[in-house]
């Protein structure tokens, strides 16, 4: 069975989800649960760190589509970071860069949230 795990770290108002392993139709529900857990706690500023994600199929991509609306409706965002070329290519093929902010590093993604917050205050 494919290995997949998520873990969450909170830094201020931003929560980072770390993905590890293989994200497919079997493991996508685990990521759905992670997003649901953050939304239950009203944490809508979410960075996803893809550094250790080895594989993604459209079932995995569907999770990001499923949660983006509720997150943005609550003035948050899902920002994607640290993808390998292999994983980025699949996101790119499906047009995700049009709708999601994708950053080279987790720090850049977190800084973007903080910049936006500073502009608003």
């Amino acid at each position: 069975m494919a290995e997949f795990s998520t873990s969450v770290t909170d830094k201020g108002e931003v929560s980072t989800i770390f993905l590890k392993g293989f994200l497919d139709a079997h493991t996508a529900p685990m990521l759905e649960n992670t997003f649901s857990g953050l939304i239950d706690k009203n944490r809508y500023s979410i960075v996803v760190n893809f550094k250790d994600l080895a594989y993604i199929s459209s079932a995995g991509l569907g999770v990001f589509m499923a949660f983006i609306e509720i997150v943005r409706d609550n003035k948050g965002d899902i920002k994607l970071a640290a993808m390998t070329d292999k994983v980025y290519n699949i996101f790119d093929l499906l047009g995700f860069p049009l709708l999601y902010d994708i950053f080279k590093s987790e720090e850049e993604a977190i800084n973007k949230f903080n910049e936006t917050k500073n502009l608003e205050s």
Partner: protein
Amino acid sequence: MKAEKNILTRNKLVIKSRTENLSEIRDFISSAAVNAGFTKETTDNIILAVDEACTNIIKHAYQYIPDGEIILTLKTAENIFTIEITDHGKSFEPGLIPNPDLKKYLDQRRVGGLGMYLMKTLMDEVKYESVPGKFNTVSLSKFINANGSK
């Protein structure tokens, strides 16, 4: 446990319609594509296309019934590597499913349905054969170039 349920030979894998089996399907295709001489990048694309086809079978043809059979058969002829994937679940008419307008698709936050687009994009040929009530076969093909790799 899996060895009892699943039939595996060099060119054939018969496996139950469960998402937990997707990783075994990917491993089977990975070895086959590497043996056929494809590069790592092309092998990754073939693996993803087959995963998408099998995920569609599990979700749509068998509608998550866990004991349906998925039969993967490998065929290599001259310059073409083909994976035939057969199920005995519900038939569908691929012609009725248009290529998605991706921008619109994403704007509408539609979940799923992108698998077929990926299959068509990642492979050189995708063919469907369906006899309702009997079987459905999707054939995914990739050309092998003159020096045996691509």
